[in-house]
């Protein structure tokens, strides 16, 4: 059994994204806002944050689906933009979009 646990702090995730893509290449991720942010304001808060941290990069940033439930937004942006966004207080977590170990697979499976 692999008991190794990955560090999911924002800094660790950003370092992994930078390691994979560099700082200027675009990466896909999901940004999670604080639960204090009203669900109906998630999209607006993210758009405003992007405009403030990356005014010259707006063409390089693509926003994806917003989850009001999870207070999250999908995003594709240069990693340096993601880092700038995560430095703001309203963003509490970041996950890469292409995780490959989400399903808890059975340890054994056999025909009945």
């Amino acid at each position, binding site marked *: 059994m692999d008991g190794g646990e990955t560090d999911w702090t924002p800094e660790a995730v950003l370092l992994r994204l930078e390691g994979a893509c560099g700082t200027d290449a675009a990466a896909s991720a999901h940004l999670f806002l604080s639960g204090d942010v009203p669900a109906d304001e998630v999209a607006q808060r993210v758009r405003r944050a992007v405009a403030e941290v990356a005014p010259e990069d707006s063409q390089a940033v693509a926003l994806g689906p917003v989850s009001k439930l999870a207070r999250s937004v999908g995003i594709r942006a240069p990693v340096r933009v993601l880092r700038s966004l995560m430095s703001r207080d309203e963003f509490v977590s970041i*996950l890469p979009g292409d*995780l490959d170990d*989400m*399903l*808890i697979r*059975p340890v054994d499976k056999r025909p009945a």
Partner: protein
Amino acid sequence: MTDGLRETLDQYGYAQVVLVFETGAAAGAPPSVEDLREHFLDAAVLGSPATGGVLASVESAGLAHQAPVHLAMASLAASSPPPVRIFPRLGMALGYATREGVEALHSRPGVAKVLRAELPSLIRPVRAESSPPPVNPTWGVERLRAPELWAQGIRGHGVTVGHIDTGVAANHPALAGAVAHFSQFDLQGRQMEGVAAWDSDDHGTHTAGTILGRAVDTNAIGMAPEATLASAMVIEGGDVVGRILGGMEWVLGQGIRVFSASLGIRGQGVAFQAAMDGIRAAGVLPVIAVGNEGLNTSRYPGNYANVLSVGACDRTDAVAPFSSSQQFGARMVPDLVAPGVDVLSCVPSGFARMDGTSMATPHVAGLAALLFSAEPEASADDVERAILSSCVRPAAMDESRGNRGIPDAVRALAALRG
């Protein structure tokens, strides 16, 4: 004895029966409750009345323990309802009896017939004819004592369970009529319209079967066989996080009472905390697998404080070596363990046995569905407390691995009604 009554006694060890008294000039007055009491089970044993304190103290693993439980309840006779109800104008009586009780009633003077009580149509409309009672529950379903709730007519009717997984094969005979809502999310995490329910793997169909699989050829694989499912296919590959988030949001809009997820990210993180907070705020109980990486590991959101975190045990009540467990200060996960080894359930091609906390989680989700079905006004907090308080940790089970131990449907129902 009728075939239906014999089948129910064979399956559960007891049955709800209707006595029909002899009529005519030769027949005397109907017997009293005291005349018949000895032949019937105390209703408190079956979890019906509010006798939680005493019932909760009984660590019963099944009907083998029924006699001592019955004796313990006898001292509460003053506060318990009578074990049999007499309807003198109808010439009938109604109560729960074991095989011995039924046989004694058959030979009692003045009793014309002893019949299995059929459930009122308000609880189980038209289904009695088309769905014979299952006689072979899987070991996990039996271990959690779900069949004893079924015998009371509690089978999950009226409850929809949210399910995010690899999909579900809705055309499997064990899932006939079970999938009320289905949605698929594409590789970019966008919801696809008009997609028929299907499974990209075996996993989702297997977990769905454990939650609410219907009896097939009298084999019962599902905990809540009259519940319905709202299933979101959130397969891996591409933007899996986006699909899972979209799936969570979608199932929450389908009128669910329970949210079952056998997935998570290894380690600790806060990304899904707002989603779990939102699910709880909506009055839904999240039941999440803790992971398959063994001691001192866990996955999130299965390790969050506000979800029901589920580990796996085997037939001997031992915690499975693979089942994750982890301490966070004074709190530990999982909250409890449930059958997760050698679990038989349906897969798109038939049936299969699997091991994993993914298999334990749907047992608990199905148990929650049974409890919501029994008490529709109960809150998610009520049901969670009832499940947790019903748990018994076997003496040999290490608390640091199994935490509260294994839940018990009969005790949970009693706690919920207590």
